[in-house]
């Protein structure tokens, strides 16, 4: 087995007496979708925030491509190849869809210090941005104001911005949230193809999507990983059934 792209080692983080992340060690291997599931408040978002660098862990280590990134800023981690999407869309709402994608392209270039030439005349930037919009099916909406997009389109744009970065690993916090059945299905199909570009650490509530997509699933309960395995392992695991999935599965 090759080295993991992304790994956490004994990661812990408390909020007061609450252990939101408790000794979490997971890894993400090339080509896979590793889903993190768990009930509300289990600590999924807290885990994503530590990996992306928004929140500092109390203990433990995070490695990307074998490098220790635990102490790096969000900005440096993004440059090192982490592509993140937010649970609640974080987009420039006053800007157009295209401009949001352009921001990602600019981030990929790593140099925003260009003061004179119009951004939209910069063909390298626009091509990166447009390719990402096309990939998620938003090319038609490129000139719409982001605030006017439907919820589902915003979720797509979140993913498109991450795509422009051509990251080494994706971190996605509930990309299906609020998408509805057909939107979910569409996004599922899309993420299925995406794993070939870079592996995805996927936090997701939608169980149909998780069971359809995941190569491996880790179950997080009260900040602890109680099980990691394939879809079949997890379906069978008694502890998981008791803690999370319910007996009707």
């Amino acid at each position, binding site marked *: 087995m090759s080295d993991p792209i992304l790994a956490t080692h004994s990661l812990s983080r408390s909020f007061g007496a609450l252990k939101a992340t408790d000794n979490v060690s997971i890894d993400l291997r090339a080509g896979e979708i590793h889903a993190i599931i768990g009930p509300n408040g289990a600590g999924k978002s807290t885990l994503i925030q530590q990996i*992306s660098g*928004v929140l500092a862990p109390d203990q433990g280590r995070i490695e990307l491509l074998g490098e220790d990134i635990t102490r790096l*800023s*969000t*900005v*440096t981690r*993004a*440059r090192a190849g982490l592509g*993140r999407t*937010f649970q609640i869309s*974080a*987009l*420039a*709402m*006053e*800007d157009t869809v295209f*401009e*949001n994608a*352009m*921001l*990602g392209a*600019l*981030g*990929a270039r*790593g140099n*925003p*210090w*260009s*003061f*004179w*030439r*119009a*951004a*939209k005349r*910069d063909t390298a*930037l626009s091509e990166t941005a447009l390719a990402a919009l096309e990939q998620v099916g938003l090319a038609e909406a490129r000139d719409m104001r982001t605030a006017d997009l439907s919820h589902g389109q915003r979720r797509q744009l979140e993913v498109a*911005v991450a795509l*422009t*970065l051509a990251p080494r690993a994706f971190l996605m916090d509930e990309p299906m949230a609020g998408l509805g059945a057909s939107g979910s299905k569409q996004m599922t199909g899309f993420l299925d193809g995406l794993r070939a570009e870079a592996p995805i650490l996927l936090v997701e509530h939608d169980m149909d999507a998780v069971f359809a997509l995941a190569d491996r699933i880790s179950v997080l309960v009260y900040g602890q990983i109680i099980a990691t395995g394939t879809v079949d392992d997890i379906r069978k695991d008694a502890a998981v059934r008791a803690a999370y999935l319910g007996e009707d599965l």
Partner: protein
Amino acid sequence: MIAERPLAVLVLTALLAVPLWALAVDEPFTITLATRAAILALAAVGLNIALGMGGLVSLGHAVFFGIGGYAMGILAYHAQTYTPLEIFGLSIEGTKSMPVIWLVATLVSALAAWGIGLLSLRTSGVYFIMITLAFGQMFYYFAISWSAYGGEDGLSIYVRNGFPGVNTLVPIQFFALCFALLCAALFLNARLQAAPFGLALNAARQVPARVETVGLNPVRLKLVAFVVSGAITGLAGALFADLNRFVSPTMFSWQLSGELIVLIVIGGVGRLMGPVIGACLFVTLEHWLGGITEFWHVFLGVILLLIVLFARGGLVGLLTGKEGPHV
């Protein structure tokens, strides 16, 4: 409704036409008023880069206006008294040359903006406003106590500084210089806004977390905006001092910082012509209403209130029918 570009042409043509008309009918004071409007507009164009694009509510932009003013005052003072300026063990000649003064005013303001920005940008929201205000007050009281350059009384410069090929003592010629600099600053502003830098800054104002996630540093973007902003406002300060042939600590006053914000809000925050329209309105009201009543600021307040309540995009927003950025 009118598109943004024709509006810019219209407003600038009007600002150019008024002093030309005044010249024709021999009303030199109106030329001075137009010059004052152009200079205040330039100062506000500077502030608008920080405020409108970067979302930085700086209540201390008079610092840069004052620095520009004192750069002019000090250099011209040493030239007119034939005394060298002793600083850092160097002995520098004063100068009456506008291009040199402008360069110094711009560079020193940029340097000050970098230092102030570096400290202030560790905070945001109300704290940012308070820190910039505090810096403004520090400079204000420093200028008052700086007796070498007139202290509270300020510095008078006997003859307006010179510009190659221009007779700056002729009001319309000095106006032309100020107007040209205003146009240049507006052009720069438009370029910045459309450039990749403007795109990133615009996003940094709205969603700094997103900007970080794509690997760009929002604070650094805002710092650069603050430096460019301070430099332009500093240049305006040098012109303002030359217009009055006088500098005093009031150029550092927080009231001036506040007035700059007010005229931008009235004109349209983050809109290219917002500061220009705001400054023209401000100077017009100041002159006409100020002649009728000492309390003309009350009317300004009413206008501000109406704009904030009913027209968030300011006058540019009303004229173009587009709301514009939120700060």
